[in-house]
């Protein structure tokens, strides 16, 4: 048997919660009419980065493909030649595909990449109505050309020695204030 409190008071208290909530700010997001920015380090669509002269950073090493627990990445490397250079050094990624039907956006590929060629953006709108559209090709993943960048193939513009690229030559020098470094 229920007590007197349960019979009489509890329903009123319940409606009280409802009533109070009516005056609160709703938490529901109005996606897709309003797009809320993600957290800065949200794992979204991948990006294949470029050196400041537009050459690709990817060397076609396939480590990302190996790190991927979902087997979402397919890479085929090829050798740069004198007349067709896509990246500094010997090799570049000729074919690069990420299958977003498989990718779980875990970011293990980013950790694996030895050249920082592969990073993730905050873009999360990865849906479509057909399989082919969700297999992103190299063209879909390559970072846009920023001012000063040229579309490869072209020769190494920063230095003749590909090591200079990796050492960061000609990258803008970051001003650091003296004093203890703050953890980022």
């Amino acid at each position, binding site marked *: 048997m229920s007590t007197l409190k349960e019979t009489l008071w509890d329903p009123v208290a319940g409606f009280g919660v409802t009533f109070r909530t009516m005056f609160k700010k709703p938490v529901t997001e109005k996606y897709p009419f309003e797009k809320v920015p993600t957290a800065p380090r949200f794992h979204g669509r991948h990006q294949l980065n470029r050196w400041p002269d537009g050459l690709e950073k990817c060397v076609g*090493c*396939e*480590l990302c493909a190996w790190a991927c627990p979902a087997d979402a990445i397919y890479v085929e*490397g090829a050798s740069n030649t004198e007349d067709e250079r896509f990246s500094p050094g010997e*090799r570049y990624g000729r074919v690069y595909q990420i299958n977003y039907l498989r990718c779980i956006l875990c970011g293990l590929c980013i950790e694996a990449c030895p050249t920082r060629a592969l990073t993730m953006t905050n873009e999360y709108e990865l849906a479509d109505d057909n399989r082919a559209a969700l297999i992103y090709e190299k063209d879909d993943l390559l970072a846009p050309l920023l001012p000063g960048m040229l579309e490869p193939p072209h020769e190494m513009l920063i230095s003749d020695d590909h090591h200079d690229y990796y050492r960061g030559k000609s990258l803008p020098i970051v001003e650091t204030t003296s004093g203890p470094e703050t953890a980022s």
Partner: protein
Amino acid sequence: MTVTEPNPTDTTPVELVTLTIDDVEVSVPKGTLVIRAAELIGTEIPRFCDHPLLAPVGACRQCLVEIPDAGNGRGMPKPQASCTIEVAPGMVVRTQVTSPVAEKAQEGMLEFLLANHPLDCPVCDKGGECPLQNQSLSHGASESRFIETKRLFPKPLPLSSNVLLDRERCVLCQRCTRFQSEIAGDPFIALLERGAQQQIGIAPDVPFGSYFSGNTIQICPVGALTSADYRFRSRPFDLISVPSVSEHDACGSAIRVDHRRGKVMRRLAGDDPEVNEEWITDKDRFAFTWSRQADRLTTPLVRNPATGELEPTSWPGALAVAARGLAAAAGKAVLTGGRLTVEDAYAYAKFARVALGTNNIDFRARPTSKEETEFLAAKVAGTPVDVTFADLERATAVVLVGLEPEDEAGTLFLRLRKASRQGVQVFALGTHTTRGLTKMNGTLVPTVPGQEAAALAELAVSPGTIILAGERLATIPGALSAVATKATESGARWAWVPRRAGDRSALDAGCLPNLLPGARPVASAEARADAAADWGVPSLPDEVGLDTDAIIAAAASGELGALVVAGVDVDDLADPALARDALRSVDFLVSLEVRASAVTALADVVLPVAPPVEKAGTFINWEGRQRPFHQVLIDAPALTDVRVLAGIAEELGRPIGIRTTAEAAAEWRELGPWDGKRIVFRGRKPAAAKTAAGKVVAGRVVLDTWKQLIDGGRLQDGADFLRQTAREPVLRASEATLTACGVQPGQRATLTGPSGSASFIAEAAFMPEGVVWAPTNSGVHLGAALGVAHGGRVSLTGGER
């Protein structure tokens, strides 16, 4: 062949030495190195320079252990390199397992090695199968203390077009240089400079011209040596490895084929102590792209009678056309070529007899002779293993007749060189001291081609000798007879060493006009009845068939109505021009091929078949040893020769009863070797020594020729880096001969034969007079260009024609 005598070395008792390693007592044969004694109790001491097949050097110092008692009651004051110390009775050894001193020493060594080693494992070819990586994890410090800039070298340094060196990765273990000088005998690379700048290097103007250079890549314990072909192509852990057997020569070398995504990425030497130990030739290693060239056949083709063009057809259609054409033809013959597995060869042998009803079948796609046919049938076919690789090391001497092992059987060459370093004398009956012979420390018995029989007869041969006869002897009258006679007279043993991987298989499978499978003589009614009973047919053709030369001649003259040709390179035949005529004039030509060739271009029906990587099978090497291998690319759709022949036979209404490789193997094994009377070999007399031999007569000289290891052969197509390491084709003759013919050494000279000429740079060599040597297929195929084979006469003139 003579019966194998029990070898004395097999029975001598081994002297054992007892020592204590990590408190475990172990007895090992005297002379064992501590590092290997430790392996026996399950302790792996880390190492880089140590290799079981190379002499100990103690170069890397990674294998340090503590020796508190060296067997004489006194300990060694400092940790010792266990790879250079032999066990001693009563010795006490403490490895990293029980000794903190050894453990710290090993950790320290690794730290030293890593001081200058780049941490680029993620992009290094060796990453994943790297002894340095593995041992750093198992024995190294977990943190690096080295924060300074590492040593850098320009990379990669090409040692040859094939082998590239990344010097900063090198740990200076000298395995590569030791392999080259100890095993291959081609010391092109060496340690240069001193201190931190110490590095492996090569003279700037001398290319790394070794046929065995690829082995250094495999034994390099770090990623310092890489191959241009495989560099950055894939990683060890995404490859599927399948043990296999090389298809390039008759050694049957064990290899490991690594593939992924349906494509072979690289080949490595397999580990077979009985055959190739751990070494293979560069051809075995790098020449594997031939089967995926653009001219690979993928669908059956049938010639459209209206247009005269080959047109793609369905399998049933093509098989039906092939069967119809064969049924309608009057005389039929089969040329199988020397590249078949025993299963496929067996299918051809049975197909010819059962489906075509003929004994016109021959595997020899090269100049032959009646003498050779009889010799092979009587003395070689179906014989059990007699002379082995290991026997060569125990022989008193080895005599090479008509064989240049470095070019024609690379792994055999390595074993002979090993034997020669152990004191086995090598004699070669040839025209000049080749580089291979020099490396085997061999003695030349100067012999003009054609005079091999006489030279062999004169040679003093002791009973412990092994005579190795090459396939070039086929065309030298009396030479094979002389080998047999000499062996019987002197008690020496002998073996026939063909050039192609499938030669011995085809012979044992019965692809010879006078032989059924298992060395059953065609002429013997009992043997025929035996095979017929096994095959479930009432009878087999009883007439001895035509051999290669006769088949070509008969086809050219229109006596044969149909030819079935498997992998045959027309230029290799005795008379390429006549062979082309024959293929053109024969009414119906069926070609079973992997890639488009001169034969498929003329064929009426072309049936694509699988290359060795796409099928399983068994090669039989020169020893007679069966070398089975698995199918590497299991998803490949190509059909085997067995399956295709079975298809034609079924369409003909005379099925051969086998459809798969496994069925063919089972049936062939069940049939077994013939235990009845074999064909008797009636020795031939050598041709009467022509007065002209050894003289230049009117500018005409005797041609000595063989195929170099790396040449224009179709099985090397696509291996461009390998081809670039081929030896410069030169023509060699004695100075007197060159002068007599008006040729300047170093200048171009021209050889002219009945069908044309070929020119080479001339080189003076110490050779009998009136003889010239030139490579058979380096740049130009002499058979096709001159129309002359080994032992024939050509004219030699200066300049280019």
